């Protein structure tokens, strides 16, 4: 190990500081961090719902929550984990961070659209959390009709609007990736030489 003094190198973490520099960033690595923090937040929200389910199952009686609340809890657990943790986690976090580096691009093709995707995702998440706070939804995350369309009288519409909004976030991120991978690969990086992740 050499004891040479650490030379100060500028990188995406120390190029600027402050909340604003993060919330208005168009850097793909910083946006990946924004996603990482937000999916972790939703992971814990979903985990909280799951914890309540498991606590209720300690005894056969409905003593912590009644059947109705139990059904809402596992629905909210499923909705949060699927749409706000699982779907954004690998593509939005790892994809944002790794894809430009793996193909030798400076950033994604549309950096500001990338930031917009994150805001759309957060907006959808807020809608769905509002639905949960307003009394929840009890259809299961699959929203099977006709139960969800006719028979359930919980906050189906609000939840689905939230998921729908978040869907646009994934669509825009996907579009961004596709354009980036098609147009911004380093010279000589042909389709068959792409890393498996890409």
């Amino acid at each position, binding site marked *: 190990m050499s004891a040479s003094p650490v030379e100060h190198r500028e990188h995406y973490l120390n190029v600027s500081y402050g909340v604003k520099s993060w919330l208005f960033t168009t850097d793909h690595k910083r946006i990946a961090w924004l996603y990482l923090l937000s999916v972790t937040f939703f992971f814990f929200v979903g985990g909280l719902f799951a914890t309540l389910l498991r606590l209720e199952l300690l005894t056969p009686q409905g003593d912590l929550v009644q*059947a*109705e609340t139990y*059904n809402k809890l596992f629905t909210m657990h499923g909705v949060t984990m699927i749409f706000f943790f699982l779907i954004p986690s690998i593509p939005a976090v790892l994809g944002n961070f790794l894809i430009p580096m793996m193909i030798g691009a400076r950033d994604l093709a549309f950096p500001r659209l990338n930031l917009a995707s994150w805001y759309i995702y957060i907006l959808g998440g807020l809608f769905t959390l509002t639905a949960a706070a307003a009394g929840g939804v009890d*259809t*299961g995350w699959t929203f*099977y009709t*006709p*139960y969800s369309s006719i*028979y*359930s009288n919980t906050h189906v519409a609000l939840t689905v609007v939230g998921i729908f909004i978040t869907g646009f976030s994934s669509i825009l991120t996907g579009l961004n990736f596709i354009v980036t991978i098609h147009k911004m690969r380093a010279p000589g990086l042909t389709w068959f030489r792409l890393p498996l992740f890409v």
Partner: protein
Amino acid sequence: MLENFPLFPEQASTMAPRVDVLFFFLVAVSLFFASLIFFLVILFAVKYRRRSDEEQPRPIKGNLPLEILWSAVPLALTMVMFVWGAVLFFDIYHPPSNALEINVVGKQWMWKIQHPEGQREINELHVPVGRPVKLTMTSEDVIHDFFVPAFRVKKDVLPGGYTSVWFQATKPGEYHLFCSQYCGTQHSGMIGKVVVMELTQYEDWLSGGARGVSLATAGERLFQRLGCSTCHRPDGTGQGPSLVGLFSRPVNLQGGRTVTADEGYIRESILNPQAKIVARYPPVMPTFRGLISEDGILQIIAYLKSLQREERSQAER
């Protein structure tokens, strides 16, 4: 083989051992390859580790025999799984023709059972041992799912149409019946039991208790009461086609199409008569939606089936 594997529900139908053997085969194959891959990952990580800073990995140019091997072996294995699974699926899908037919109507949150002789049950299904039983199932409201673990029988029960499932119980006893498609607040309470009885006890059960008229007779009464018989006269002189001998026969429709008159077709024709118009008849039948229950439709179907039997027995004479 695998008669009483712990953690597994009892095997109480002819299909149960066959489903289990396939399941264990899949588990064994997966377990073998998972262990192999796990072992090789560790082995290669150690064997091909970088031993010095100067060491450069040699480029790999490919290995044709190896590639063929790891394509052919999984292909062969998945084809075995596919054919085996498909054969089993078709056997589960096609009930034997001599099956006892029982109707099941699911609703939030109970199972309503109608036997052909008119017995009705709620959350209980009595069947004889050693005889194939075919269930014709529908729902009054949302999607349910008829699940009897001991029989390895599980089938969605849909509103707006029929699904069917069959089983042949092998051991007398009482078995759990669950709804396994989330259907609302009391979904977890939508449970019942299947009582499998020796044939003699089953006969006793059939003759005892409050038995109403048979399904076919109830259907015939409905057929009169709703005025179906005004147009659908047996001799074919009414405004609508005669329904004698209709069931399971092909029907020529306007526009040259042909459908088989199964349960789903009859149900559709009662609730949505304009959907399929029989050739050479005017589209004048009104809908009976709201005038007839799911139970009632099943009774009419039983009646139409009985018309067929009479005709067949006459033909045999």
